[in-house]
């Protein structure tokens, strides 16, 4: 089975690089470090916070511990950061580097957390989950802030991540709820103070961290779908408010239909359009929006953990007219001459730098609808 999954190393890297003032030290040969950097920097070219131990043939033969020791000492001096996250990949796992011992052997001024992230040991999701639990040892007991929550499940290179977080925060704030920490897209301090939240809201991934925090700090958690669409958003807010016993101000949760009214005839025309969706945990909620709110017919709904070849065949054998996925679906979309709406990691051929154009939340429903319409309407003769 061929999955379109980045493996444990990528998941761990993404979780760690979400601590925005941390440095990720990859203990790997050059290629793994490059790959992680390339996927990340397409979404933020000015945010370079990673280093590599550069495992070469010599380290493969004699061990990579000395390389790691040197890298730790140098990184400790060079970077002004509170945390070094050591992410060890395939090679040190196979040759048996004693990473714990190396870390213990050096005196450093920074916190160091290390993770066994050998790609062959699991999926991207597993890497993410495990990394957050490892990082959780940095968390400290705090007084609980009333009506506050942590959002868990984000990565710094998710498509539209900053815009989505801004919109979700706006909606929660308007309901009287404070976002304490967004994991993993936060500062070191915010992460350390995460136990101050009254509730953890798991949005697709990060359940193991939530479980851990429940046990270690008594923070309850709630699993919700990613808030796509008007109804999806409403449900998201309502569910959280209910758990926090915050009265929902229905008026504040009223969404504005005016933008949709301006293009309602187009939406009429697209009603019943067959579409397909593939992605991580974002896929189901967005498919729900496309189906239940825009009235599209979902032909194929696939997860990154499904066999990709089968997904492609299923899409080829369907009437799919619009494809929703990542940049990796560009080829199949080109082949079928249909538009591709990028909404899920990895997206490396579109940028999203405007923080007021989310896909999540009420505003996101408008932006997403606008994107879909523009993609369909501009899909001209040159590509069709």
């Amino acid at each position: 089975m061929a999955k379109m999954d980045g493996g444990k190393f990528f998941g761990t890297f993404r979780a760690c690089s979400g601590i925005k003032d941390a440095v990720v030290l990859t203990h790997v040969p050059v290629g793994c470090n490059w790959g992680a950097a390339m996927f990340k920097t397409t979404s933020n070219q000015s945010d370079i916070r990673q280093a590599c131990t550069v495992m070469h043939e010599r380290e493969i033969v004699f061990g990579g511990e000395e390389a790691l020791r040197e890298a730790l000492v140098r990184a400790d001096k060079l970077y002004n950061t509170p945390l070094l996250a050591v992410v060890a990949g395939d090679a040190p796992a196979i040759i048996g580097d004693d990473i714990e011992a190396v870390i213990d052997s050096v005196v450093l001024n920074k916190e160091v957390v290390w993770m066994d992230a050998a790609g062959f040991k699991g999926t991207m999701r597993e890497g993410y989950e495990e990394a957050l639990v490892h990082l959780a040892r940095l968390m400290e007991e705090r007084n609980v802030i009333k009506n506050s929550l942590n959002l868990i499940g984000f990565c710094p290179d998710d498509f539209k991540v900053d815009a989505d977080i801004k919109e979700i925060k706006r909606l929660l704030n308007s309901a009287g709820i404070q976002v304490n920490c967004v994991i993993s897209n936060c500062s070191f301090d915010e992460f350390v103070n995460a136990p101050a939240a009254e509730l953890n809201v798991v949005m697709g991934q990060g359940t193991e961290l939530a479980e851990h925090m429940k046990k270690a700090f008594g923070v309850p958690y709630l699993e919700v779908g990613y808030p796509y669409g008007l109804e999806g958003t409403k449900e998201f807010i309502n569910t959280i408010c209910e758990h926090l016993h915050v009265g929902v101000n229905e008026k504040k949760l009223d969404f504005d239909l005016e933008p949709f009214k301006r293009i309602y005839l187009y939406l009429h025309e697209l009603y019943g359009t067959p579409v397909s969706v593939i992605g991580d945990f974002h896929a189901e909620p967005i498919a729900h929006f496309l189906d239940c709110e825009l009235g599209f017919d979902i032909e194929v709904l696939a997860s990154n953990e499904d066999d990709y070849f089968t997904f492609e065949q299923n899409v080829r054998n369907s009437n799919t007219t619009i494809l929703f996925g990542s940049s990796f679906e560009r080829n199949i979309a080109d082949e079928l001459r249909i538009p591709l709406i990028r909404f899920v990691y990895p997206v490396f051929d579109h940028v999203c730098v405007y923080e007021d154009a989310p896909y999540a939340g009420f505003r996101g429903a408008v932006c997403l609808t606008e994107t879909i319409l523009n993609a369909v309407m501009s899909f001209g003769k040159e590509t069709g």
Partner: protein
Amino acid sequence: METDVKLDIDVKAERYGKALETPEIAGRGKGVLHDIFRDRAFHGVHQGTTWQLHRYGINCKLSGSVYAVTEILGAIPLVHGPIGCSFHQRLTPRRIYTPIQDMPCTGLDENAVIYGGEDELRKKIVDSYSRYKPELIAVLPTCVSGLTGDDIQGVIHEVEAKVPCDILYVPSEGFAHRDRRALDVFLKDFTKAWKDPAKVPAYEIRGYGHEEVMLALVDQIMDDQYDENADNLVNIETFGRFSYGFESELKEMASLLGKMGVGINTTLLSCTVDAIKKAPAARLNIVRRGIRWAEQMKKEFDTDYLRRWFFYTGIDGTEKFLLYVASTLDLDGEAEEVVRIEKKRALQELDKYCKTFKNHVFALFTIGFFFTPYSVKTYALDFKIPLKYVCVDTRWMRAQNVSDETTESMIRGMGELIDDWDLGVELVVNPNLHELKEIAKKVDHVLGERSATPIYEKEGISMIDTSIGAYLFNRIGFNGMLEFASYLTQEMKKQRNHREPIISKFDYDETYYPILADPMCLASREMWSTMWRLRSG
């Protein structure tokens, strides 16, 4: 002789990914410059990020192999490693524009690490054939399969009877990459060759994957039954379908060589699997990258090779190159006449532009690199551009970990060549902005490379972007220079407004431009530089 090399390029392109699909559809055939600008925009938009990332790391050897295999129409790479390796390599630096679609992977897990992954590989080869029906499956080991010691060649031998396609083994383990001194040594040797073309280093950038694929193809796929050397055929090594202006360059090469009586057998690796098998039918390989594969072909099939180097640039250089090709193929008389006519035509046409250039004074701002002295020579002697200053910025070399010693020897070599050629140019090394402004005041036009243009323009230095010269000067043929001269003439006529581009408003690090003056970015660069120096090679 007419050669329809284009056939190779389009075959199965739909399935295996065309280069630059959108631009091709948007405006194919509007001319060489248009092709290059379009490729530079649509492909180059990704390339800049990749270049910048080289300040913080290098890509996996596997990615070079993956890219090389996907250049071959009808071939698929099969990654023998964990799923993360194939996920990551779908985005290979030279073709980010078109991520790789058909790339099966054995998906090695902990069991495979303990018990070996040979069974997975066996099954995956068979499965890959039944799914993708390729003509060639290239098995690419990763660090994991390299460490567990799977007998990949043994597995291939076992299953080759079960799949009706060729199977290639390419050593691609990521930990066996190039040496830390690779670029430094390369530049040092290059500098020697500037002065004495006979001293062209037999050195190549090893271990970045591409060369390994070429070698494996020579050893395992090329077929000596085609070693007939019948029709004055040559193979041309290309930088690939994703190179800027590839299509128009290919067209010109085919036309010019055809007139000389030389046929293009194939363009390696932008060709079909079948064409690779038949590569030994050529009598000559025109090499543009590393020479190991060509040496191997010489050894196995007695195919001569000629390296297309910088000293074959310019009108005379191009002539020399073409005559060398003709002479190797015993076509001296007939081909000499064609080259003479083509050269004469080029000189006549160039003369129109030279008349415009000679009435102006120019300065050239450049980074000191492979082709700099020969580019200067082309400006001064071929275009007859009155070049008063050549300002060389060596920061790029420093940022690439080139040693001070090598940088100094390059600058020294550059100066000596400029003197030897009696170009009457003043070489200015690493001038500051104030000095550059003063130089700009003393000339009519400043020719420069796009990378630093925003910074200069902010300071009021108006520049003509001549970076497309890099894609035109080294073409096999005279037209590249004519296109450049035409472009330059047009640019000289343009009125330039004072610009304050947004990208000039950031704080950049002075030494490592265009890295931002950001402590995290700079520390990451420093970390990479140090660890690379300490560990690799």
